């Protein structure tokens, strides 16, 4: 059985790659993480095309969790998912802090937790002290 995959959507290529570096230290080898940061030209912004590409690469039985930072990141993630109707039901775009949420998700994916369980742990309310 595959493990829940994770996609990081950020306005900055560096943020997305940096989060990938951060979690790669803690990551089980069979947890797959994909960075979709910046616009097509590497400027600050998000790209529905990059996100679509990541969604296709991440696609697996256990599903994919998508984290995003601000503004258009969520809209482009939702748009990218609309463009890939086959993936519907197997992807969750989750409202969580992008760095902290991705970290927790990668740890829990490594433990073999389901998409739903991970989403429940990382949703914003869980970060309140």
């Amino acid at each position: 059985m595959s493990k829940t995959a994770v996609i990081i959507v950020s306005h900055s290529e560096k943020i997305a790659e940096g989060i990938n570096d951060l979690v790669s230290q803690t990551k089980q080898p069979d947890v797959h993480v994909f960075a979709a940061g910046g616009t097509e030209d590497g400027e600050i912004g998000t790209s529905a095309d990059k996100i679509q590409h990541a969604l296709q690469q991440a696609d697996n039985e256990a599903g994919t969790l998508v984290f995003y930072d601000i503004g258009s990141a969520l809209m482009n993630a939702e748009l990218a998912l609309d463009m890939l109707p086959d993936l519907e039901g197997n992807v969750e775009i989750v409202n969580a802090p992008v760095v902290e949420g991705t970290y927790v998700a990668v740890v829990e994916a490594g433990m073999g937790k389901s998409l739903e369980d991970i989403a429940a742990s990382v949703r914003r309310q869980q970060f309140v002290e």
Partner: protein
Amino acid sequence: MELTTNVMKYWLVTADEKMQTHKEYLSELDQAIGDGDHGHNMARGFQVAAENAKESTEEDIGALMKAAAMTLISKVGGASGPLYGTAFLKASDKWKGKTSLSKDEFAEGLEAAVEGIKTRGKAEAGSKTMLDVWTPVLDYVQHHDIAAPDVSAKAKESMEQTESMKAEKGRASYYGEESISHIDPGAYSSYLLFEALAEALDKEEA
């Protein structure tokens, strides 16, 4: 009123010209209550959309507008990319297979576009966004025989009304009360888009 494929192409080309001309001003508006890239975003997206439209031999208005939607989605970068992209995409679906649109057909596409923006942005009119131009323009188109000067006037007046609104969606919402007394950049670019439509309608009537 009949909107032909050529009028729709002219709309895209004229919209591009306006985005290029007002690029700096759009970014200035966005600098005040956002990140200062709205002109850059719109100019980049519409330039390619207009180029493609000019070169296209497509007769199907749905296909023409869908291509424009995909270009905006790919090229715009900011929130306006998925928003304008979704608007054109939803409209294109209604216009599929048509080479000419009656007023009601046009209105049907515009309605789908507005629904698309609302869904994509999880917003309604009144939050100081592009919807504050799209919604009244749709309302006008649905309930009147379209007259080009009226489309333009409706868009302009609605755009101006965003100045006194408090932003509740998008980056501008982080500015809270301070967002008041600035025109919303996306409302301004939408005004430009509908001004371009008015010019296209004028051309059709001429």
